[in-house]
């Protein structure tokens, strides 16, 4: 489960800390007390920044770091494809071996494939991704309102 990539992101997180955003959400994982506050800033159709703060296990912390690294700078449609692929991987119960297309899409996030075998930890890995999806939806609503 604890791939070097995951440990590396845990020890040296990317983009941690809260910065300006268009929407902010707070998500918790009640089974282990993981918490994250996450902000999304959009620039047109581009994910300009994802900033976050929180506490939790190495899986939840590393996952937020990978999310920041992967999604910032992408356009929203592409970022959503990454998010959906990560969700599919995490819900695979260890049965899915990522193909080349998925590996290209998910980059470092492929390292979480092993986590999907541990039902108790899948929520940890998904915490920041669900928060990002929620915050992005809210930010888009703000813009169109």
């Amino acid at each position: 489960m604890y791939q070097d990539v995951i440990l590396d992101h845990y020890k040296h997180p990317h983009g941690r800390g809260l910065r300006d955003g268009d929407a902010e959400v707070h998500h918790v994982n009640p089974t282990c007390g993981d918490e994250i506050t996450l902000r999304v800033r959009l620039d047109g159709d581009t994910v300009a920044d994802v900033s976050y703060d929180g506490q939790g296990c190495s899986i939840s912390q590393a996952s937020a770091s990978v999310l920041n690294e992967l999604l910032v700078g992408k356009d929203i449609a592409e970022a959503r494809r990454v998010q959906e692929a990560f969700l599919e991987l995490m819900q695979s119960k260890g049965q899915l071996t990522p193909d080349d297309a998925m590996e290209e899409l998910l980059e470092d996030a492929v390292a979480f494939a092993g986590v999907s075998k541990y039902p108790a930890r899948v929520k940890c890995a998904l915490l920041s991704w669900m928060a990002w999806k929620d915050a992005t939806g809210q930010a888009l609503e703000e813009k169109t309102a």
Partner: protein
Amino acid sequence: MTHPRPVLPGLLDTEAIRKDFPVLDREIHDGKRLVYLDNAATSQKPRQVIDALSGYYERHNANVHRGVHVLAEEATALYEGARDKVAAFVNAPSRNEVIFTKNASESLNLVANMLGWADEPYKVDERTEIVITEMEHHSNIVPWQLLAQRTGAKLKWFGLTDEGRLDLSAIDEVITERTKIVSFTLVSNILGTHNPVEAIVRRAQEVGALVCIDASQAAPHMTLDVQALQADFVAFTGHKMCGPTGIGVLWGRQELLEDLPPFLGGGEMIETVSMHSSTYAPAPHKFEAGTPPVAQAVGLGAAVDYLSAIGMDAIAAHEHAITGYALERLSAIPGLRFIGPESVEDRGAAISFALGDIHPHDVGQVLDELGIAVRVGHHCARPVCLRYGIPATTRASFYLYSTPAEVDALADGLEHVRNFFG
């Protein structure tokens, strides 16, 4: 590994005892021997209990207290025989004071609901107070919150000291003339603290309040004497004391069980029923509506026999030695902070701790990879985590089959965890 282990007085013959527990032989994660240190969550089951369960189903299964055929009479005798065994195990003055429930949570909810529907002098209303403590399991918090919300009663609680003990310094202000019930745990499932019953009971009796004791973490580990405790109700569960899941116990003083109203209605708990009204069977049946967990009660009876044959004082002495050794080994690990008493005095066999800033879920996962089963999380005692400013703890908890070698495996495992995330 290389740690010189001191000679520990009072240890049981764990080599013999472990042969009774088939699961302790299991290997997990490619040949690693299971080190089971999650006994505060549930204990493992000896062959004697497993055989009692399957033997009941293979030879005696029938519904109880109805029917005149052989199996019905055997099943009833076995079920009521289990009640006799439990009554003797807790030194109850009468077997009729032992109510079988599903678990300790149901036992505690039953007490709260007896009082919720009671008339004077037991009536709980907006003029009265309920007292609990900050170290309770959620099962001894939420039923009282519900009762307080439904009746308008005020819920109060004893706070905790930095050392993980009850702060009784303001006991006369917490338990007052308005207090109707004081409910607290004998041994904390998260801190391990063994609470001073006498002081609390004395004050409760002064003001005429009832006392309910959650003995879930005590009944498996020490001699439990409901008469010596001087409580009015004592709740515990079977599965933490070598018994099956699905069986719990509520002991209550006979005159209270006679006075207080039933909670669940149904078969078994009645005397006569008409379409307009019913009269109720005497306790304990008044509180046992519907087909009870018969096989589980029989299994609990076998567990009580098993524990009694070894001796509860001997089990307590064994765990005292193991816990003392574990506190010593763990205290030598850099960055490890105990959440709960650091000394073995007045403490049970559950040890909670934080390991630096490594999240307990990471600690538990890496230990699991080594074959070591501990519990991580808030242990259904979230107020304790809030009190000490931590999201969760790692908890190791021991039982009669725990060995010094398992303590060593835990200590070595925690060193490995430190290096892994260091």
